């Protein structure tokens, strides 16, 4: 018996493309389709309605290893995890998994609102693959962990969402799998809950168990994993020590050069009539750059067009550090005067532009996201990872000390030293 926990060979998953309305068939359609099919076969000689979500994926994970899986949305990360947790079957290839697989992405699966907390612990435990004796043994621990002792016999429909989440997580966390799958991308819940997820993950890793960790949070990936695989468009492009992989991912995973433009097929259909064209980071000279100096102001601009008028539209940016902390969110109609002036934005071609003053951002790597929405009505478009850029601190306050400065901002403050 080898020391491999996971052995994946040439795994591939092909999906049929179903449009939103036509996710499943009806028998009636199938019957009428097959009557029409001779004609259809003539018109569409090749069936091109399939795509490979994942192809030619091979890797091994040794027992006790924490492996990071990184890649953009749609790169196939979730499909890979679903195959390894046996929820979906691969179209080709083979994988061997030795040991019980648990995952922190299906917390609360099978919870029934009418049943009490106690009943749901047993039910959920059984669904996750625990034996009754095992649940009996861990029951008190689970309840203590969830901190809902006095409500354990209350139907969970009366729980607050926080209580519900804590109980569900407590069951998952006590599964003690040999292989733990954590998909942070899918993890719902507040920051506290996500922190708990990560905490549990480090515990499990510390106990010498195998962990597969999927995340967009690069600092968590480098902190928690030793090695990473990178998925791009369903293919595995790299496997390397985490630092190297994260570097590669950050420099190749996004569009380079401080600009992101959207091709028409990349724009979701529900964005209509909003049509994103490009987002750019510009330096003080107005050049598109992927690296700016912190001592110069920089300009963020979003170019878009509207096919028809939108009332109450706001176009804005999120600035996020590479660790995942928000620096700020700002919209082009934050100013009430601007908001009433553009109460209705007519069809046309626009650029929304703002300037970040000099001496604001600290050194580091930032992600710029874009959002176009009407408050409480509709979100037309959002891309949380539109552009990545670096801030170079040359000339910033305190650079004569060679040390990294804590904090997201690095303002030039007007210090006065008064001798009394």
């Amino acid at each position, binding site marked *: 018996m080898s020391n491999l926990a996971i052995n994946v060979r040439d795994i591939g998953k092909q999906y049929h493309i179903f449009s939103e309305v036509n996710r*499943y068939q009806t028998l*009636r359609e199938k019957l009428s389709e097959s009557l029409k099919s001779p004609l259809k076969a003539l018109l569409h000689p090749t069936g091109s309605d399939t795509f490979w979500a994942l192809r030619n994926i091979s890797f091994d994970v040794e027992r006790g290893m924490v492996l990071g899986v990184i890649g953009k949305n749609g790169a196939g990360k979730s499909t890979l995890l679903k195959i390894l947790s046996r929820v979906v*079957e691969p179209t080709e290839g083979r994988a061997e998994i*030795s040991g019980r697989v648990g995952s922190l992405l299906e917390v609360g699966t099978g919870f029934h609102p*009418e*049943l009490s907390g106690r009943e749901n612990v047993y039910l959920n435990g059984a669904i996750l693959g625990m034996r009754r*004796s095992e649940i009996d043994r861990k029951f008190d621990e689970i309840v203590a962990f969830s901190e809902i002792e006095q409500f354990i016999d209350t139907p969970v429909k009366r729980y607050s969402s926080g209580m519900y989440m804590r109980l569900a997580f407590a069951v998952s966390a006590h599964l003690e799998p040999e292989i733990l799958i954590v998909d942070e991308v899918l993890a719902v819940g507040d920051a506290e809950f996500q922190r708990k997820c990560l905490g549990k993950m480090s515990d499990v890793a510390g106990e010498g168990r195998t962990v597969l960790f999927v995340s967009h949070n690069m600092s968590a990936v480098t902190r928690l994993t030793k090695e990473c695989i990178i998925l791009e468009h369903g293919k595995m492009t790299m496997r390397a020590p985490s630092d190297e992989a994260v570097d590669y991912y950050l420099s190749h995973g996004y569009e380079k050069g401080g600009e992101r433009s959207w091709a028409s097929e990349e724009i979701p259909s529900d964005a209509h009539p909003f049509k994103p064209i490009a987002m750019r980071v510009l330096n003080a000279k107005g050049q598109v750059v992927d690296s700016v100096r912190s001592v110069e102001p920089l300009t963020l601009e979003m170019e878009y067009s509207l096919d028809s008028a939108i009332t109450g539209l706001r176009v804005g940016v999120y600035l996020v550090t590479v660790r995942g902390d928000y620096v700020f969110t700002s919209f082009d109609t934050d100013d009430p005067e601007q908001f009433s002036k553009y109460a209705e934005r007519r069809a046309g071609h626009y650029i929304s532009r703002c300037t970040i003053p000099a001496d604001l951002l600290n050194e580091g790597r930032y992600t710029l996201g874009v959002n176009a929405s009407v408050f409480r009505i509709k979100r037309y478009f959002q891309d949380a990872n539109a552009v990545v850029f670096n801030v170079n601190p040359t000339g910033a306050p305190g650079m004569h000390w060679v040390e990294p400065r804590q904090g997201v901002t690095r303002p030039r403050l007007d210090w006065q030293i008064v001798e009394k």
Partner: protein
Amino acid sequence: MKTDAIETVKKPDTVIIQPMKGLVALNLRDLWIYRELVYFLTWRDLKVRYKQSVLGVLWAIINPLVTTVVFAIIFGNFAKFPSDGVPYPIFSYTATLPWTFFAAALTVSARSMLTSGGMVSKIYFPRIIVPLSSVFANLADFLVGFVIMIGMLIFYRVTPTLNMLWLPAFLLLATITALGVGLWFSALLVMYRDINYLLPFLTTIWMYLSPVVYASSTIPEQYRILYSLNPMVGVIEGFRWALLGTQQSISPSMIAISSGIALLIFITGLFFFRRMERIFADMI
């Protein structure tokens, strides 16, 4: 199987994940590992059903009982259907009891894969557990309804015979038929949602093709063999023979044919379900 997680760490089970081709084995090993889930899902179904309704467990009695009362008045009293020499109400209840079980188990298990979609698309377990536990939950209703059966047997002073020992066998036959048809339909329903509308129609037609309100002896002799291709004929006449001792409507060959068809539906259902199992998570 091992019960201790620590032991599992030492000797982990290796699971091989690969595409299934052709007719696939039933994977009874996994079903055995997850056997407690069958119990928990059955228990959940029962608990939820009885918790949500005020009448609770009474529903299990009311359904076959009211049906029987209506049948007894319409078919027994007014239409004067022959009932193989036993009082019509008990004649009818002996059929409505297994029929109600069958129809409910069939409908619930056929819809079970869709109602459990959330679980199926998130987590692995042998999918067959879902329709299986829906059938078992209905079996509990049957047992409750059987209390009334005993009451009626006493009321009508039916002397129990050794035939009664065969009753579990006929119940098994009903269970296998319901599960077999349920497996077929639950898998089909994942692919073709409009089958959902077909189900009530199917159960209604099936009831009239089964000896629920009339006796099989009403069917001309030469068609009886054809008639017993319906497994519920064997089940219902089996119940009547075992409980009431009716002789006119039953023959060993009819039981054999009904059982054979039930087994055929069940086994093909198992393999069909297993074959479709791999695409459930993609479709739901």
